């Protein structure tokens, strides 16, 4: 009994620590060693070991078609993001886009996004946001980005020694709930992961955060616990999400969770505004709250450096 009580106490303490999310400041370089992030300094000062680094980029929440006061020119800021990508000293291997490519799932919006993002000349692996699947059968998204994908657009691939899994948690949402993976996708994930050894670094990406950041605003995924349970055997798991238009990070065991900035408009920190809607900031501040993310991975070292860079500032 004493032993149980001790375990419980220790567990509770650990949970409490884990509940304290790390609020990342602009331009901080986080180095992941064995799943534990260390802040190593400011962008521009810190140097990741790039000698053998395999790197990829994350773009999120482009919202092409959005024209409200929070950013009347979402095309322009996405173009600036791609300009930043093209200026990187080491060319990334590919890009992932964690959804809300478009604002209203219109073919013309996807056309514009493809045209701008295409200027990077990088392969792009997409997962949809809820704004990308507004048509009933999700055909517009799937015809364009879903080739070879399963179900509503989930898939996996291998690159640079790591296994990448793109998940869809924005369809078949239930009233009163949050994001949703669903039984079919979870069964597919189980089979997909079963074929990987525990030492394979895993990168999971999806639109809505796979951990509960703020349930009152629906910032979480209803059945993500089941997916995370399947990931427990792996020594290095990195989860990359979008949706909340701000950088947030959390580490739990060997799993590091990160949400990315949008290229279109910022959203408020949890609970700090009446709603999670677009946040209007001073025009001169807008580019300091939009940005891109680079992830460096050194094979063998199980080290990922997650670098969030704003468009300006």
């Amino acid at each position, binding site marked *: 009994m004493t032993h149980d009580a001790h375990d419980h106490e220790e567990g509770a303490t650990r949970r409490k620590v884990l509940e304290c999310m790390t609020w990342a400041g602009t331009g901080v370089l986080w180095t992941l060693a064995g799943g534990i992030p260390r802040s190593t300094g400011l962008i521009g000062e810190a140097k990741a070991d790039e000698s053998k680094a395999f790197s990829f980029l994350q773009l999120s929440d482009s919202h092409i078609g959005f024209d*409200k*006061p*929070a950013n009347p020119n979402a095309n322009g800021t996405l173009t600036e993001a791609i300009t930043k990508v093209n200026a990187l000293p080491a060319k990334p291997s590919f890009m992932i886009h964690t959804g809300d490519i478009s*604002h*209203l*799932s219109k073919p013309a919006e996807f056309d514009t996004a493809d045209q701008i993002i295409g200027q990077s000349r990088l392969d792009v692996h997409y997962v949809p946001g*809820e*704004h990308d699947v*507004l048509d009933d059968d999700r055909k517009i998204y799937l015809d364009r980005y879903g080739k070879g994908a399963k179900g509503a657009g989930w898939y996996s691939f291998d690159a640079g020694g790591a296994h990448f899994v793109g998940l869809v948690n924005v369809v078949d*949402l*239930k*009233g*009163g*709930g*949050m994001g949703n993976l669903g039984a079919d996708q979870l069964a597919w994930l189980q089979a997909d992961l079963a074929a990987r050894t525990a030492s394979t670094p895993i990168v999971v990406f999806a639109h809505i955060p796979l951990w509960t950041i703020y*349930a*009152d*605003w*629906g910032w979480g995924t209803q059945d993500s616990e089941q997916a995370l349970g399947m990931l427990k055997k792996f020594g290095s798991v990195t989860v990359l999400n979008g949706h909340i238009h701000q950088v947030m990070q959390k580490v739990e065991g060997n799993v590091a969770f990160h949400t990315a900035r949008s290229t279109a408009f910022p959203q408020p920190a949890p609970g700090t505004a*009446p*709603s*999670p*809607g*677009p946040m209007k900031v001073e025009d001169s501040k807008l580019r300091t709250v939009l940005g891109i993310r680079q992830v460096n991975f050194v094979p063998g070292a199980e080290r990922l450096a997650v670098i969030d860079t704003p468009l300006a500032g």
Partner: protein
Amino acid sequence: MTFVFNCARAALIVAALMGASAVRAADMPVSIDNFVFTPAETQVSVGTTVIWTNNDDIPHTVVDADHKYKSSALDTGDKFSHTFTEPGTYEYFCSLHPHMTGKIIVK
């Protein structure tokens, strides 16, 4: 006689139309502001048309929990209406932001 009969019938029709007009339920507006349906719960009489208006900068939808009706995506300023012809309690939500829920009680 024919004239009188026709007049009487016309008067009846007019009376019937006026009667129908008199009992027609008023429309019920529901606004969507700050990711909230307002009012979140409302009681209406049978025949009421509920009209939702999205005032947010983000699109929303109105989807019946039992899938009896659903709107397409409502952009800023867009409206969706549904007429409730049977008594009952109808729960609905936004399929894009499912933490947004509402309820229409039809009596």
